[in-house]
């Protein structure tokens, strides 16, 4: 505004008239522009989540080209049968095995688990019974005979020996199927190309395998469940106990303030540091305890501290601060009138806490614990450091067993260069995400259930 503008009646120092209008429009325009950019920023999160899910789905399903050592049709023909391999009877399948694998290998399978209840496909009765009577009887002595499905799987893995030679993503498989088929025909003549979901019921039920075609997450799921069981067994009572102490008993003494500050700081320590603590304390120092050697009955070859209990306790320490902080909040939210009413009736401190404070705080404590639990289930780094085994084919049978977990399995498979391992890693990720999702849904349901009952 010019100071000696003749149109200006009153000099206020502020823009007036058309200048004011322009100025305000400009300010609003900046406002709208920046608001738009704020909105765009929130889209980044949505896009990232979409891309993540897209990427995993894209890898978990798709076309595969498979080459068989002996095509199924030839296998069927080799015993003079007709029809499809998967339709053959158990007897016919055993016949195929007898025709195609060495007697030695067959005997090994039979020792693992017998083919028939009452007769033998590879071994002789005398030798088999002698083995069963020996100091180290074969596993098959105490197991029921294999069923048809089991034999079928053996035929697949030992005779047909399918090998995935290339995989394509879901998008390519859906939208450029023709090109994929042409490419497969050119590169792998005679191969079988079909659409495959890497996430199958079999995938969930099979143990680890070095062949991605037969690998599954069964042992990893059991490992995860065992580890999380130990984790909660340790951290829930201790965490809630510490929270009760801090909220209901602790005064403002130095040690109590130290505990509180310390818990807040522990919550920010990187998880890998907990892994190193677990390695030094649980795996190394407490090895006699964590290997189960003190309790006897442990296979000496596995008796080191790299067990489920070490992993569970390590994750327990890791989520302890989270559980404590959440439980403290839940306890703090309990109205003090409830405590006063209880004390007014002549209740002791613990009676007041146990009968009134804890029941009221339960929904909050449970929600916090389940959130901490899902954090623990997804943890990988501390378990790598503590020493999760990478290749486990038997289900873990207790806290002193070697173990692998779902995230560890995903990490291992992701680190392999072959495409097929990426595919099963994606399938395992889907399993993990479903597990986490159902846990969180449980948390929400629990919270709703309890808050309705309290009302």
């Amino acid at each position, binding site marked *: 505004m010019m100071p000696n503008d003749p149109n200006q009646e009153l000099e206020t120092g502020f823009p007036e008239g058309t200048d004011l209008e322009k100025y305000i429009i400009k300010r*609003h325009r900046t*406002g709208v522009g*920046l608001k738009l950019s*704020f*909105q765009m*920023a*929130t889209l*980044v*999160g*949505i896009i*990232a*989540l979409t*891309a*993540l899910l897209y*990427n995993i789905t894209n890898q978990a399903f798709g076309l595969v080209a498979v080459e068989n050592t002996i095509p199924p049709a030839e296998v069927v023909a080799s015993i003079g049968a007709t029809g499809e391999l998967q339709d053959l009877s158990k007897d016919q399948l055993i016949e195929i095995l007898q025709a195609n694998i060495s007697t030695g290998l067959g005997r090994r399978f039979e020792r693992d688990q017998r083919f028939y209840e009452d007769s033998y496909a590879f071994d002789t009765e005398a030798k088999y019974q002698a083995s069963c009577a020996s100091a180290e009887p074969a596993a098959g002595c105490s197991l029921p005979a294999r069923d048809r499905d089991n034999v079928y799987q053996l035929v697949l893995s030992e005779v047909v020996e399918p090998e995935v030679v290339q995989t394509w993503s879901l998008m390519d498989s859906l939208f450029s199927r023709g090109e994929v088929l042409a490419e497969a025909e050119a590169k792998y003549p005679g191969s079988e190309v079909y659409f495959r979901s890497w996430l199958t019921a079999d995938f969930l039920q099979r143990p680890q395998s070095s062949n991605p075609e037969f690998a599954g997450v069964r042992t990893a799921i059991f490992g995860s469940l065992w580890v999380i069981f130990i984790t909660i067994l340790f951290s829930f009572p*201790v*965490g809630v*106990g*510490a929270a009760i*102490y801090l909220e209901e*008993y*602790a005064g403002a003494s130095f040690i*109590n303030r*130290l*505990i509180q500050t*310390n*818990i*807040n*700081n*522990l919550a*920010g*320590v*990187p998880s*890998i*540091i907990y892994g*190193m*603590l677990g*390695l*030094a304390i649980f795996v190394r120092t407490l090895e006699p305890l964590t290997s189960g050697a003190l309790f006897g009955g442990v296979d000496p070859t596995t008796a080191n501290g790299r067990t489920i209990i070490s992993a569970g306790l390590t994750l327990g*320490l890791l989520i*302890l*601060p989270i559980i404590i902080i959440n439980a403290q909040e839940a306890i703090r939210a309990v109205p003090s009138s409830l405590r006063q009413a209880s004390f007014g009736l002549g209740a*002791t*401190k*613990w009676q007041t806490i146990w009968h009134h404070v804890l029941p009221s705080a339960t929904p909050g404590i449970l929600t916090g614990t389940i959130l901490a639990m899902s954090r623990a289930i*997804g943890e*990988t*780094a501390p378990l*790598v*450091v503590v020493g999760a085994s990478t290749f486990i084919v038997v289900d873990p049978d207790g806290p002193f067993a070697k173990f692998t977990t779902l995230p560890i399995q*995903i*990490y291992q498979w*992701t*680190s392999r260069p072959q495409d097929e391992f*990426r595919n099963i*890693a*994606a399938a395992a*990720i889907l399993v*993990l*995400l479903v597990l986490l999702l159902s846990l969180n849904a449980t948390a929400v349901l629990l919270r709703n259930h309890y808050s309705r009952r309290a009302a």
Partner: protein
Amino acid sequence: MEGEMATTSSLTSRDSIDLGELRKKPRIGETIIQSLLFLCGVISILTTIGIVYELGKESLAFFTHQMWEQTNKSLTVGIDESVTTFEVSRSGGVLEVGDTLRLSDEIVMVSSIEGTLLTVERGVQETAAVPHSAGVEIFRGSYVSLVEFFTGTEWNPQISKFGIWSLVNATFMTSLIAMSVALPVGLATAIYLSEYASLRARSILKPIMEVLAGVPTVVYGYFALTFMTPLFRSWFGVDTVQIFNTASAGVVVGILIIPLVSSMSEDALHAVPKSLREAAYGLGATRLETSLRVVLPAALSGITAAFVVAISRAIGETMIVAIAAGAGPAFTFNPFDSAETMTGHIVRISGGDLSYDSIDYNSIFAIGLLLFFLTLSLNIFSQRVVARFREVYE
């Protein structure tokens, strides 16, 4: 007054110790429970002590670990167990007085040198003096020095190079890239959620942020390797972008910590009193001006705290960088090159066959100690900032 009269009445029983049924009853159960609960609280202190003690102990072992490097010298004549002066070959490295040398299993200490003639103290460090034949190789004992550790840029345990900077540099690279994604996006999201978003928009965005924060990091690692890296390679060229690179790891770490930045910043923005906003509107400020010039500065310390916590989280993040950033230490400033971070190195080394008391085992604890102090000081700093911030508004 009546009230005063009451005090004058004599009460002979007031000092009686016969308290009858009012006497305090020993409540052993209550005491035991309180002690148990106190122990639960103490476990967290023990955890911290355990971390500092174990990391410190192994780090000390790392810096006092005797390594034997080749001198390319050997004995020229055989010696028996009593000889203290002998001749060594002229070739090879330089020896100094005070060096510890190893001849097969025996360790000796050099007390003086004349040309190729060494005078030594035999059988030190609890080894026995034994005869040695001519031609026995001589190794010289050495330690990792603090100076080398904190200034060196090469980390290669095989040739006894322990310069932490190649790992720290990669950590800083990924964290820097992560923060350059997470800070603007996280803060802008927070401003949108706190100042602009309708209830409906919030009810959609908040759960998405929670899901993003709840996805396990190993899944993000998979995402970085199988999505982000191919994307960068298609943009910048397969030759420019290596399969493992700090850029894609960093960007994905950034995505991981967006929810952290946005939720902490939003809390800080929420804590700004409504009266301050109303004051700004009352002066004719637009919504943007109110948000950026009044609310944001008022929430600045809370937002700073959020940033600092986010940096600490980025530095400590492990699986994403272990999977996508690289599988070997490298000192590089190129974000498209492979480089191993501190956390990535710890995971790779401990994932292999690791024997206790080896220098590899000790070295990861030294890295861990540095990582611990780095993240701890960042967290303490952010708590200080938040504490100051609370004083102002509560």
